[in-house]
């Protein structure tokens, strides 16, 4: 049973959803924002610390929600490490395409950490779970306190 959901609930997602590596509040941070998925009640908060050159030095998050949103947040932290805000936004755009369609023309190598979520496009109502932490991250980078994935 459930063999067909292994595309989404693969080993990486199950592990990251269960035991996220980066789920922690940063003690010292420069920006933070919350993300809300009003349709299901998922909620995430993201904290970011910049390096001197304004690239992302560290990211932490707290999430209440499903495996998908937690795994997405955890993988995101690794994907954006060392990136500028601009790069991060470009990555989000590319990830959104990936999450909605399963592929993206301009999927840079940088997006590789997010690949385990590629199958989410077959689960339309779960796409927002995967993009929720990104919405929060972008809101933080933009100096906004909150965002919604809806």
């Amino acid at each position, binding site marked *: 049973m459930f063999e067909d959901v292994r595309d989404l609930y693969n080993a990486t997602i199950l592990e990251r959803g269960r035991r996220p590596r980066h789920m922690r509040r940063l003690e010292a941070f420069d920006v933070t924002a919350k993300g*809300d998925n*009003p*349709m*299901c009640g998922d909620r995430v908060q993201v904290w970011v610390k910049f390096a001197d050159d304004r690239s992302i030095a560290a990211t932490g998050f707290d999430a209440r929600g499903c495996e998908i949103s937690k795994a997405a947040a955890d993988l995101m932290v690794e994907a954006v490490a060392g990136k500028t805000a601009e790069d991060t936004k470009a990555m989000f755009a590319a990830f959104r395409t990936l999450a909605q369609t399963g592929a993206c023309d301009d999927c840079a190598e940088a997006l590789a950490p997010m690949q385990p979520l590629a199958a989410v496009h077959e689960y*339309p*109502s*779960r796409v927002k779970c995967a993009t929720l932490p990104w919405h929060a991250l972008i809101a933080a980078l933009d100096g906004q306190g909150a965002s*919604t994935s*809806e």
Partner: protein
Amino acid sequence: MSQFDVTSIRAQFPILGQKVRGKDLVFLDSAASAQKPRAAIDAMVGAMETQYANIHRGLHWMSERTTEAYEAARDAAARLLNAGDRHEIVFVRNSTEGINLVAHSYGRSVLKPGQAVVISAMEHHSNIVPWQMLRDAHGTELRVAPITDAGELDMAAYEALFADGKVGLVAITHMSNVLGSYTPAERIVKIAHAHGAKVLLDGSQAVVHRKVDVRALDADFYVFTGHKLYGPTGIGVLYGKAALLEAMPPWMGGGDMISSVTYEKSTWARVPHKFEAGTPAILEGIGLEAAIRWVEAIGYDAIAAHEAELTEHALARMSAVDGLTIIGRAQDRGGVVSFTLDRAHAHDIATLLDRAGIAVRAGHHCAEPLMRRLGLESTARASFGIYTTAEEIDVLADTLTKVREFFK
């Protein structure tokens, strides 16, 4: 009727094969509500029979499919009106609710007491009463732009209404449901904008008959109602420019329109969901989507050409009926023809026509102030749709001659 094959169009409307009182139905009441093509019926039935669940909040297959089908209606409405963004489309029950939404939300938040709302002398009650209620509750003023005896908006008088700088909003019909007149929407908007006022256009009739482009018109709000556009009842559309909708407070509260709820304070979902509280008219959205696609497939060029030919024919044939007066002689007009007969009251005309299988409307057409302006109590009204034929108009004209004889 060169533009398209009206016979094949009619074949798509099951109801047009019906008999009424033993006679072939001659349905000339489409301006009140249009009949439904097979495409719209089938879309609704298909949903109920094979693919239905509540939407937006569901994680299962039926809910996902139904959500897609319903949200496709938003895309269709955005395409139909050439809106810049699908989020500018708010679903409401009908035109009336769309206008009330603007009067409540925009009217009571952005408009200030002392500011004025301009309507015209040929509005439907649905575009009068909400502004009256706003006036009485909120202290705005209600101004009426006059019409000429031909039944056209008096543009000089319209422009003069802005002189004191008090006008905050114009709410005017894009096409009269009584006189058939189109209003010069683009100029209406230009003049209003030049004076800092926003414009709501009531497209209940217009959108049925010609291509509407809200961006070309630069309309701030535009409303229409599904059941006149060959779609189901229970659904209508309010288009609003994104920036305006975003600044407006919600009107109804409830499920689906929130971002988060605590007893102390709730926050709102983004536009358009902020304005769509509770389970929406899901099946009706699906039906409307099919109706819009069906209209688009025929194309407004063909529709407008067909209806222009019909209207010309109707004006010629009906004017030739002894004692008949056509009410409304606008240059730019569509397929709605009001008339009176010297010897018979509109209701009696309608009842006699009905016995011949001909459906027309009679009364004040929800436009009492316009009736008063015209010095009338009521008119009879024949109105045409995609499926109307010249032969039906001939039957109408011939029967009207006999109605007059009956009341000799």
